[in-house]
């Protein structure tokens, strides 16, 4: 039985003797990235000149391909192959697993004549140059028998059903509690489809060395990518060596592989030479997953003193007809506020849109956009400060299941944030503050996001020159994994940071679950700590057992580590002297972490507060963020710089969700309107103004051996609602249909007579 109490023992990360843990250490791979020399998958140097593959997307959203004329493309200069479903090399049927323990099944490309979504890759061209491949791709002529696409989410809400295996959760009697409540809020909010828009599109480069498939791709999880590719092209898993060393953003969208990888592998096999394939920016919008739209009905019932008597969040959302992905926008509220009568649940509509999938803070990012605005509305009805309303509904234990919180500093986040931001200067009546042409308002919201620990392994090697090498099948999607693993290794073995090398993103390294769900640092880092602790023991035993060592015959548990030197009192030698002499091939150990079996006895979350000041132009309805401050409690922070970057990045995303980001569906065609970054509006520098994130001192000893938690998604939770609340405070208009664009706000301003 493993227990969180096993983690009570002290360790170097906790004691942090050199102060490296938490320090704003510069990014391990930073110089490579800023000098353009970090080889992303598409830029890896293959052993021989690669061929270039280009995908062709379906021009319809549903139906069948009735004809494929590839003659002109085949005859185009430099073309090496043109494939459609009629001539693509054989792949295993979808979802099948030749190896029963594969973590992903077959995902065949160009599978058959059916078109399941707009932009689905339906043809593939390989040529000697990218230019020739692109030119030929435009010559592929496909004819279709199109069905009317079933893509109108809002028109199909009536058909929504329970997601598979789920039920509504009711505690107490919501209907009675809500009906009897002295003050009520009952509102419906809508959030739109969002695209991940990673800087690096999905891309792959594959070649074969004998039977071995060498695949470089851009993916957040290594093992499913390796297994899925092996299953798809029908080779043993061990014959796929998959690498994803540098990743230009994931955000959940690269939680799976796409046809770029499959087609590059099939191409490399067929042609006997390396093949590289990348999605274009336009293809990314439809060809990879998106955050689905939601409709959220929130009902809050409270007593006059602000105590919540009843709380309900019901979410309607959509996924592809072939899928089950559910945007669980209602889940987070279960742990957030106390209320005796509660009802939460989800409804799912299946559509002919591309697959819905995870995006940064799935659930919370969308869900806080309604509940945290409903709380603002309730506070106004009660005549309470929205901050005070939240404090009055702070639960003592997890209100859904009665479990104690492992650590909960939400109220401290709220109070410290209010003080740092100057919340006391907010006027509760909207529309009272002007700065030039701008009406100025302040808003706030709470943040919450779960914390997770998954099984992971990691190996540590000390090399003869004293270098500590961390090896793990983990990924760094721009979050700082390389850096925090180096910090953990350096602190654990007490060597200078420059004496650590980190190798990740490789299927032949000890497996870790990858990046996602803000579990990366805790999971990969804990496994690294475990490996480091084992290596300390192994080094101590090696030294004390080695007659050539000054530490010989000492007690292994008395060996101390400092600055690359091991010692027992005044007897010492360098790590490198020991290893060179006693283990000339290096000394390697493997560590492992697993979730504690009793971890579920606690409710373990990360928390925060957001404070935002916006300007609203009352003439045009334009909104500009002036200031954003987040205060977060997320366990021990490993690196102040990379953690802050994660948090502020999430906050900025939240602002974008409130104000600009959306991809509307043209229901006639089943396609998204915005297909490039000039049309799909992620924030630019000028949109944001000041932004800062403060991290409270915290150690959550129930979370993992280091007491850290995740920060990758927390910043995105609640930030959008704080912006929307600030917009209301600025001008007195509430827009519940996100994003709050000038046209919508203008309608409200005009209705008010402004």
């Amino acid at each position, binding site marked *: 039985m493993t227990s969180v109490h096993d983690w009570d023992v002290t360790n170097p990360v906790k004691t942090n003797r050199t102060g490296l843990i938490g320090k704003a250490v510069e990014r391990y791979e930073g110089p490579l990235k800023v000098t353009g020399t970090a080889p992303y998958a598409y830029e890896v140097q293959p052993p021989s000149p690669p061929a270039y593959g280009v995908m062709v997307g379906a*021009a319809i959203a549903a139906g069948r391909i009735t004809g494929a004329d590839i003659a002109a493309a085949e005859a185009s*200069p430099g073309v090496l192959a043109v494939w459609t479903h009629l001539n693509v090399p054989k792949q295993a049927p979808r979802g099948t697993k030749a190896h029963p323990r594969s973590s992903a099944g077959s995902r065949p490309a160009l599978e058959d004549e059916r078109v399941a979504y*707009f932009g689905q890759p339906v043809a593939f061209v390989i040529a000697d140059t990218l*230019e020739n491949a*692109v*030119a030929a791709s*435009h010559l592929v002529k496909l004819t279709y028998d199109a069905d009317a696409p079933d893509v109108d989410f809002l028109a199909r809400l009536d058909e929504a059903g329970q997601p598979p295996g789920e039920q509504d959760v009711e505690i107490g009697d919501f209907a009675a509690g809500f009906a009897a409540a002295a003050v009520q809020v009952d509102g419906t909010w809508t959030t739109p489809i969002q695209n991940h828009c990673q800087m690096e599109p999905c891309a792959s480069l594959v070649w074969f060395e004998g039977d071995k498939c060498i695949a470089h791709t851009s993916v957040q999880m290594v093992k499913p990518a390796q297994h899925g590719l092996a299953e798809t092209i029908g080779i043993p898993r061990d014959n796929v060596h998959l690498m994803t060393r540098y990743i230009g953003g994931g955000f959940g969208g690269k939680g799976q592989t796409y046809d770029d990888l499959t087609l590059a592998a099939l191409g490399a096999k067929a042609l006997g030479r390396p093949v590289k394939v990348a999605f274009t920016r*336009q293809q990314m919008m439809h060809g990879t997953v998106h955050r689905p739209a939601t409709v959220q009905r929130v009902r809050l019932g409270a007593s006059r003193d602000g105590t919540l008597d009843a709380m309900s969040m019901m979410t309607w959302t959509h996924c592809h007809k072939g899928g089950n992905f559910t945007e669980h926008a209602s889940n987070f509220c279960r742990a957030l506020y106390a209320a005796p009568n509660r009802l939460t649940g989800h409804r799912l509509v299946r559509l002919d849109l591309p697959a819905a999938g995870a995006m940064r803070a799935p659930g919370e990012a969308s869900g806080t956009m309604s509940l945290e605005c409903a709380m603002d509305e309730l506070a106004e009805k009660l005549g309470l400060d929205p901050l005070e309303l939240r404090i009055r509904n702070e639960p003592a234990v997890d209100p859904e299941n009665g479990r104690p919180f492992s650590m909960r500093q939400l109220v401290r986040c709220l109070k410290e944030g209010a003080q740092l931001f100057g919340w006391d200067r907010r006027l509760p009546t909207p529309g009272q503050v002007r700065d030039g*042409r701008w009406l100025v308002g302040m808003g706030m919201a709470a943040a919450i996001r779960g914390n997770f620990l998954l099984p992971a392994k990691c190996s540590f090697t000390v090399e003869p020159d004293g270098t500590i090498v961390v090896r793990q099948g983990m990924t760094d999607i721009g979050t700082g994994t390389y850096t925090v693993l180096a910090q953990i290794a350096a602190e654990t073995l007490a060597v200078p940071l420059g004496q650590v090398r980190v190798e990740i993103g490789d299927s032949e390294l000890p497996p870790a679950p990858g990046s996602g769900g803000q579990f990366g640092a805790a999971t990969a880092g804990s496994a690294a700590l475990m490996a480091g602790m084992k290596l300390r023991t192994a080094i101590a035993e090696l030294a004390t057992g080695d007659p050539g060592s000054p530490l010989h015959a000492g007690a292994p548990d008395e060996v101390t580590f400092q600055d690359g030197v091991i010692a027992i009192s005044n007897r010492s030698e360098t790590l490198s002297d020991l290893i060179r002499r006693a283990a000339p091939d290096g000394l390697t150990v493997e560590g492992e972490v697993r979730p504690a079996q009793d971890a579920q006895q606690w409710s373990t979350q990360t928390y925060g507060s957001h404070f935002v000041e916006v300007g609203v132009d009352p*003439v*045009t*309805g*334009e909104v*500009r963020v002036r200031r954003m401050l987040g205060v977060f409690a997320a366990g021990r922070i490993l690196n102040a710089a990379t953690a802050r970057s994660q948090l502020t990045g999430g906050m900025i995303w939240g602002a974008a969700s409130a*104000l*600009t980001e959306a991809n*509307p569906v*043209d229901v*006639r*065609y089943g*396609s998204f*309107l*915005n*297909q*490039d970054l*000039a*049309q799909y*509006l992620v*924030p*630019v*520098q*000028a*949109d944001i103004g000041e932004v800062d994130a403060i991290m409270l001192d915290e150690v959550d000893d129930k979370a993992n051996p280091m007491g850290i938690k995740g920060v990758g998604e927390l910043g995105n939770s609640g930030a959008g609602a704080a912006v929307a609340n600030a917009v209301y405070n600025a001008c007195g208009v509430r827009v519940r249909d996100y994003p709050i*664009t*000038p*046209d919508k706000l*203008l*309608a409200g301003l*005009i209705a008010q007579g402004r």
Partner: protein
Amino acid sequence: MRPFTYERATSAEAAARAAALTPGARFIAGGTNLIDLMKLEIETPAHLIDVSRLPMAAIEPTAVGGLRIGAAASNSAVAADATVRARYPVLSEAIVAGGSPQLRNKASVAGNLLQRTRCPYFYDTTKPCNKRRPGAGCAALEGLNRNAAIFGASRACIATHTSDMAVALVALDARVEALSPSGQPRSFPVSELHYLPGDTPHLETELIPGELITAVVLPPPPAGGQTYRKVRDRASYAGGLASVAVAGGQVALGMVAHKPWRASAAEGALAAGASPAEAIARELEGASPLGRNDFKVPLVARLTAAAIDDANGRG
């Protein structure tokens, strides 16, 4: 992108001549719009004539007290020019409201004028578009057309011209200087450069095949204050929802029509003593919104009235 040939023009005359002689030829200067369109095969020139290094980038005073801006001057250079900033601030403000610094460094004055619409259906080649394929139909007409034209549109096309710079030039009564393939120079108002869509939205400008814009000429600025205001979803690097250029009593609107829209009715009303709000209301009597872009009518009304007030305050 289709294969194409490329030449660097040695003179404006040679460029215009070559463009007329080579089927499918296009001029290229900054390429900030053309190359994007070539990648999508919306533009498929067989031959590119690079005019970016011709000596056409000078910004110099004219004999009558105006300013002549070479067609190859970069948007950044024009916006930063001391004379432009002092005497034509509306032009400087309009230019910096467009694109991004990187784009403005690369984009030329003529290229800015000749940029093509940002209608999303124009960019999605799986959808019908009368600009891309005359007679194919207009997907935007019944589509997600929140940013469509409210003036001068047709059933064939509801796209807008999205240049900011052009709106200021029209308000300033600027003229285009162009050189025909036969070496004939001519000059006409910027307001006559772009066509309304009618039944032929693929025919966008007054220029004949091969004709090269060589300069834009500003008359002396009109009396009164100047301002440019643009409304957009994002603070920078975003096409506008509407814009207005005011130069004294001269007013032009952007992103509301297939061309920069000179608000003549509003100007007439202003001259006759109407308030800014009354004046723009007169202009908007001619607006024909489509539903999703209805908001542009009150938006333009409020924006223009505020901008005129603003300009008067600066006068």
